[in-house]
């Protein structure tokens, strides 16, 4: 049984040595390379993002009367350099529609800029505020049609007159899905259990805020590429409120 080819980058001298080997010596060489690769690979996270990525935790949750969309504030290059401690990953694409991004920052900014433009044009033509689904669909079109080049996923959340509060997820390949709550980014792996256990439909604003803050704090506590402050945006029919929870005000858990 064979899987697809695996390519491993080696230095020129090493490759040169390999060319002069044969039979058992070559087999040993390949085996050593394989073991090295395994060990090297086990240190990497299994995310497929390359280049400058946000390495992040994002979430959105529906509550009674609105949605909360939230994220951490760290941008990283590789796994060891924090290129920004205070980046805001919550991007407003219309009055009551926000987006948050996970993956390559450059791709995400390009897509959201395009989506913002198309959405405002659409809303002028329709002479009414756009639907959240329209915003999400625009993102999905961009992601799906450019899936080879792009490496970014989005959570779109907001409020509109037709269906009230909604959350849509556009994943890496361009799938669009509506969910009552969703998490994303590298830090989200650590909080799947927590959000599955703690989410209840129709929470109040206070419960939902506590839920989001706790979830983000837990993820930031375990994921080294998420951190900084917690940004929350509360979107309801009446208003859009941006809440920032600084590091020292985050909830603490048993081992802190």
């Amino acid at each position, binding site marked *: 049984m064979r899987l697809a080819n695996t390519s491993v980058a*080696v230095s020129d001298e090493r490759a040169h040595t390999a060319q002069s080997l044969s039979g058992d010596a070559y087999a040993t060489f390949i085996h050593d390379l394989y073991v090295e690769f395994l060990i090297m690979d086990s240190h990497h996270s299994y995310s497929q993002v390359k280049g400058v990525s946000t390495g992040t935790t994002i979430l959105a949750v529906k509550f009674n009367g609105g949605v909360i969309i939230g994220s951490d504030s760290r941008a990283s290059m590789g796994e060891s350099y924090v290129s920004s401690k205070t980046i805001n990953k919550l991007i407003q694409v219309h009055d009551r529609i926000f987006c948050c991004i996970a993956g390559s920052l450059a791709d995400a900014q390009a897509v959201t800029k395009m989506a913002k433009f198309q959405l405002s044009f659409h809303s002028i033509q329709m002479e009414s505020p756009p639907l959240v689904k329209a915003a999400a669909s625009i993102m999905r079109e961009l992601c799906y049609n450019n899936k080879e080049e792009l490496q970014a996923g989005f959570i779109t959340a907001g409020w509109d007159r037709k269906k009230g509060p909604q959350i849509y997820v556009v994943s890496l390949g361009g799938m669009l899905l509506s969910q009552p709550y969703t998490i994303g980014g590298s830090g989200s792996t650590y909080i*799947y259990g927590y959000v599955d256990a703690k989410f209840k439909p129709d929470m109040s604003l206070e419960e939902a805020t506590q839920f989001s803050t706790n979830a983000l704090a837990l993820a930031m506590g375990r994921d080294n590429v998420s951190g900084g402050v917690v940004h929350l945006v509360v979107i309801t029919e009446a208003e859009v409120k941006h809440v920032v929870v600084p590091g020292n005000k985050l909830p603490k858990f048993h081992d802190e």
Partner: protein
Amino acid sequence: MFISQNFEMDSFSQNPEFTIHSFFTFLDTTIMAVEFEGGVVIGADSRTTTGAYIANRVTDKLTPIHERIFCCRSGSAADTQAIADAVTYQLGFHSIELDEAPLVQTAASLFREMCYRYREELMAGIIVAGWDPRRGGQVYTVPVGGMMTRQPVSVGGSGSSYIYGYVDSNYRAGMSKEECLKFTAEALTLAMERDGSSGGVVRLAVISEQGVERQVILGNQLPKFSTV
């Protein structure tokens, strides 16, 4: 310069071409151990996978090392079985020499010795937990690479990533035995829901001065959460 090769796990000594089956067959489980006053509660899922096939859906990953010392195994099934057998032998011998029950720390140290010495060849993440008269209930974790550390609560395996947040927020020091059992069962259930390599039944064991009590929670009896 790039070298391209196909890798194959078996018969590589005869065949210079190799095929990698999948890096994700390792660490295919969820295991957990919690200390409480008077003992420890350990738990694991029951799935063993080879690629996408579930080789055993009722595996017992809670392996006795001594009368009141168990280990929870994650990683390569072959590696962990071999290590556990070796440590069981060494610990049994040591306990006869000592003429008393061995310490949990001794068992954990033996695991660590082996996992660190052969770290290049092995792929094993082990949680050692038990009770001894000197220090009561203890949990030691020996992850891939061969570090050893004592923790009041420890999770391991591929499914553990998903429950770090849940465990961090729900663990409190000084829980009773029943609370620990409920906490472990819930955490393992949440991990099994999200991790493709974990599933089946939940196996639990309580180790204390009185001995070992084992239980199994079947699929339809697992705790339910309001995930829509």
